[in-house]
């Protein structure tokens, strides 16, 4: 029990005609990073809002940090931090003003709230923002301040016991993404349990100890990153040819299981799952050279979320929205 930070059992939530959560189960061990991976509309935000006491589930049981989110909401709120999908900051105030405000509302006391604000500004490299209002911040700065605000946390001035991050890097440039990732890694060292939602397998792979794949309000796969990779067919190799006319010939000569290879003539692309990354890479390069087929690019990569879904559910006809 003490080793479990989060328990979600059979949770359902409906909005009008939409069953956003449809009997979702989740268990997160204390001090770990748990990735919730799913496409747009899967129910990730609904789950995070329920876990952080913002939304009441229609049915099911949810415990966070040893307390029921419905009946003991205040106890839960004392122990959590939340980084929502959209910035939750006072846009008119400056960075320090925001953090002091949240610190006071966390009942740190005026002096302690100031100290904690300074400490977090320093930690997230925001000291130079001075009195500038948040509305004038760049996207990366705003996300960092939002993350800092979600860590205001405990009365004793430490990070919160449980932290929820809802698509923390969506919309950030690669630099902003790297900053958020390193911040998350530093947290885990401090014993905080993190639940992180994402649409990117790469992100879950980078940060999470375990991953739950969510589709249509349910968990459709659950496990460590390695277990999941095995389930999803592991990494892939992409071969882009110079001449689309040679795709058929390449398909025949490459040392890849023909049944698993997908061919995209528009992009002159062959793509296939691989088990042993390096062996597959050198075998493909050698085969192409020997046959004299010119390749523009040969690359190893993680499967995309689409491919994971295709593998797990057999359907990839989901309508994708851009955020």
């Amino acid at each position, binding site marked *: 029990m003490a080793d479990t930070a989060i328990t979600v059992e059979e949770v359902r939530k409906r909005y009008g005609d939409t069953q956003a959560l449809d009997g979702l189960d989740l268990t997160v061990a204390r001090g770990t990073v748990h990735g919730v991976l799913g496409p747009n509309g899967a129910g990730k935000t609904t789950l995070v809002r329920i876990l952080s*006491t*913002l939304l009441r589930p229609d049915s099911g049981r949810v415990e966070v940090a040893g307390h029921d989110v419905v009946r003991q909401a205040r106890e839960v709120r004392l122990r959590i931090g939340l980084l929502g999908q959209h910035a939750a900051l006072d846009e008119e*105030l400056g960075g320090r003003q925001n953090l002091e405000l949240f610190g006071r*509302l966390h009942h740190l006391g005026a002096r302690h709230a100031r100290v904690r604000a300074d400490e977090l500004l320093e930690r997230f490299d925001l000291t130079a923002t001075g009195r500038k209002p948040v509305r004038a911040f760049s996207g990366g700065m705003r996300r960092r301040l939002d993350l800092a605000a979600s860590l205001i946390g405990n009365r004793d001035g430490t990070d919160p016991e449980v932290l929820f991050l809802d698509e923390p890097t969506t919309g950030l440039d690669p630099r902003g993404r790297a900053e958020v990732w390193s911040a998350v890694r530093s947290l885990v060292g401090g014993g905080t349990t993190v639940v992180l939602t994402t649409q990117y397998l790469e992100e879950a792979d980078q940060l999470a100890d375990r991953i739950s794949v969510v589709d249509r309000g349910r968990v459709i796969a659950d496990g460590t990153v390695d277990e999941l990779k095995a389930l999803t067919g592991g990494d892939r190799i992409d071969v882009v040819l110079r001449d689309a006319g040679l795709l058929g010939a390449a398909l025949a000569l490459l040392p890849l299981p023909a049944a698993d290879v997908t061919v995209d003539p528009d992009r002159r692309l062959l793509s296939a799952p691989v088990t042993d990354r390096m062996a597959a890479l050198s075998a493909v390069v050698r085969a192409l050279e020997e046959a004299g087929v010119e390749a523009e690019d040969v690359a190893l990569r993680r499967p995309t979320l689409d491919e994971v879904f295709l593998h797990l559910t057999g359907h990839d006809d989901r309508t994708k929205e851009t955020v």
Partner: protein
Amino acid sequence: MTTYALTDSWTMTRRELAHWARQPGRLVVGLVFPVMLLLMFGYLVGGGRGVSGDYLDYLMPGMLALTMAFGLEGTMLAVTQDLNKGVIDRFRAMPMADGAVLVGRSAADMLQSAVGLAVLIAVGLALGWRPQGGPGSFLAAVGLLLLFRFAMLWIGIHLALVAGKPEMVQAVQILVWPVGFLSNALAAPTSMPGWLGTAVEWNPMSRTATATRDLFGAAGPDAAHIWAAVAWPLALLAIFFPLAVRRFTRMSH
């Protein structure tokens, strides 16, 4: 956890004060607008149908009450904007006292209205208006006006929680005008056609204007008028305060 109700409310009030400090222009516009109305109705439009005696003596209490009534849309706009901002989620996910968001808003709005009254009274005095009732009556009049503003405030909060969208604020902003002018603020109901006069007399704002007129005037207060100006806002508060608080605490569920 009620121990934190006061400190949290104070923190939220300070947040509003910090907003003012950031954008003093908005505050100033809010203060200048009623002064403009006063000058317009006092000197340009030439109202005061059916009013005997000095029109400024009649108009000042009316304008003060009208300013309090228009506070409703200001509150509604502010609450609507707050609710549509992401920061409200952070407030809700924190262990702060229930309702501190609303109490902070109402404290800041009351403060702004008190300053607004002071400015309008100062302008009136500069124009030659002289309250006759003595300091006690003067304070009682200000008290009645603020009580009325407090009722308007909670109606504004409730409407914002029910409507929740900026478009609805516009609708209310348009509606507040006829309701504000369908009162005895600018002209005596006796000068109006029968049904209109009745509607005007029933308008809670008219009651506040009448009672303050008594208190500022030489003849002294009429107990029935004072009673009405106390009872109406209290009745509105008894309805809208609990409705708004309940709505707010339940909203996200």
